[in-house]
């Protein structure tokens, strides 16, 4: 096993374990903190793919900003394990069954996707994810969606002000 492989498996295990902990944790604050660990593991994957910009932006935006706001809200509302509504056993069963079905579909999908087996990810090489190439793609090929997304952000901003203003 090469270093990259070892790192890959470590990060994957970490991501999966933390993701499960997000769901299992009784305390919402713990869930948020585990989610941050997930983001770190995903960012690690990005670095392995040589997409450094994505990796760090993932951390800055998700772990650094959005999750802080999450923590904010959870701390202010003082949510804890007692505040969690008790769900009916049938609801839980339904969730487990539908989730299980979906998992089965996805697993069988990965097993049967023979056309994907020949393809491998570019690990540690390839420079598509570097900021220079990303910038070029964003301002040439993807300039229309880039500009149009400004409408999206504008409407979100208008919304924030409409809701936030007294």
């Amino acid at each position, binding site marked *: 096993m090469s270093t990259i492989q070892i790192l890959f498996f470590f990060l994957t295990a970490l991501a999966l374990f933390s993701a499960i902990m997000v769901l299992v944790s009784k305390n919402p604050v713990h869930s948020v903190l585990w989610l941050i660990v997930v983001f770190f593991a995903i960012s690690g994957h990005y670095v392995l793919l040589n997409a450094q*910009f994505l990796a*760090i932006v993932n951390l*800055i935006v998700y772990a*650094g*900003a959005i999750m*802080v706001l999450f923590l*904010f809200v959870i*701390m202010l509302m003082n949510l804890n394990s007692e505040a969690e509504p008790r769900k009916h056993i049938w609801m839980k069963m339904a969730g487990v069954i539908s989730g299980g079905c979906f998992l089965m579909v996805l697993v069988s999908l990965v097993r049967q996707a023979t056309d994907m087996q020949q393809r491998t990810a570019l690990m540690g090489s390839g420079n598509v994810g570097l900021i220079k190439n990303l910038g070029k793609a964003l301002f040439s090929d993807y300039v229309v969606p880039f500009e149009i997304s400004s409408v999206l952000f504008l409407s979100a901003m208008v919304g924030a002000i409409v809701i936030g203003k007294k």
Partner: protein
Amino acid sequence: MTLLAIDWGLLIEKLVLIAVVVFGSLGIALYTTFAERKVAAVLQDRPGPNRAGPFGLLQPFADGLKLIMKEEIIPNTSNRVLFILGPGLAMTAALMTCAVIPWSSHVEMFGRKIELQIADINIGILYIFGVVSMGVYGIMIGGWASNNKFSLMAALRGASQAISYELAMGLSLIAVLMLSGSLSLKTIVEEQMAQGGLWNIAYQPLGFLIFFVCALAECNRTPFDLPEAENELNFGYHQEYSSMKLGFYLFAEYVNMIMSSAVMACLFFGGYDVPFLDESTLAPNIAAIIGVAALLTKIVIFIFVFMWIRWTIPRFRYDQLMNLGWKTMIPLALVNMLITGAAILWKAGV
């Protein structure tokens, strides 16, 4: 020296560098606490600490010893794991910044060319940004885990303050990046060092001002030390902490100060550049030593300014702080960005 496909020489080199930088930073931070008390004393016309050692020079060790020897109290109702995690996170986040700071050019030793930078990644500034945004968690987790309303309020204040000022900080940085065309701190410094190149402060005075104010806010220094406002919040987010865990929080603040000074020096004041001196004519090792000295001098000057501000300017009120951040800093940074872009366009002759 390659074994198991790993260049052990590089590994050892980097480990030594990390150790030197981390312990160096901690050492400087140690004496910064001392400097703070001395500066405060000078500004308030009193002698300051002068008992431990000559001129009180051993005072920081005495302080450290005191913190370590004190009884460790973890409140019963606190969240134990997070309570311990908080100061650790604060300290880690503070120290991690040093990884991308170019302390000087390279030295040649044992036939190897050793770069005096732990990692020259091509997203250097963004990395710093990411780490800084992680620093909030130290405060928030510590404040929440204490299970004390004052701690929680202070932590929330600290976090909202940090997020608000991060925005303006990032926007002011964009103007610098537009000039340099690179995110790597090393490249930015080298561009300022090049013959005929001026320090970025000459092009970006407004950008620097914004960055400096935001750095003050990020480090929770006066006039932005709202999280520790003792008249409103007793002692702030580390109210329940004692012993070395408290020490870590206090210490992290000083490490943060050093790191933000170093970043400011690199971005706006030529990093390890000595003005009016052509480093390329000197032997590399000598140039490196001069470079480190130059960078440290700049850092010390910045730290002094930090302290000077602390002991002269009163604290903001919370709404003033938010108004300044959102209604002054961010628009100013946007204007700065616009002007820089226009100037670059004009210079390019389009």
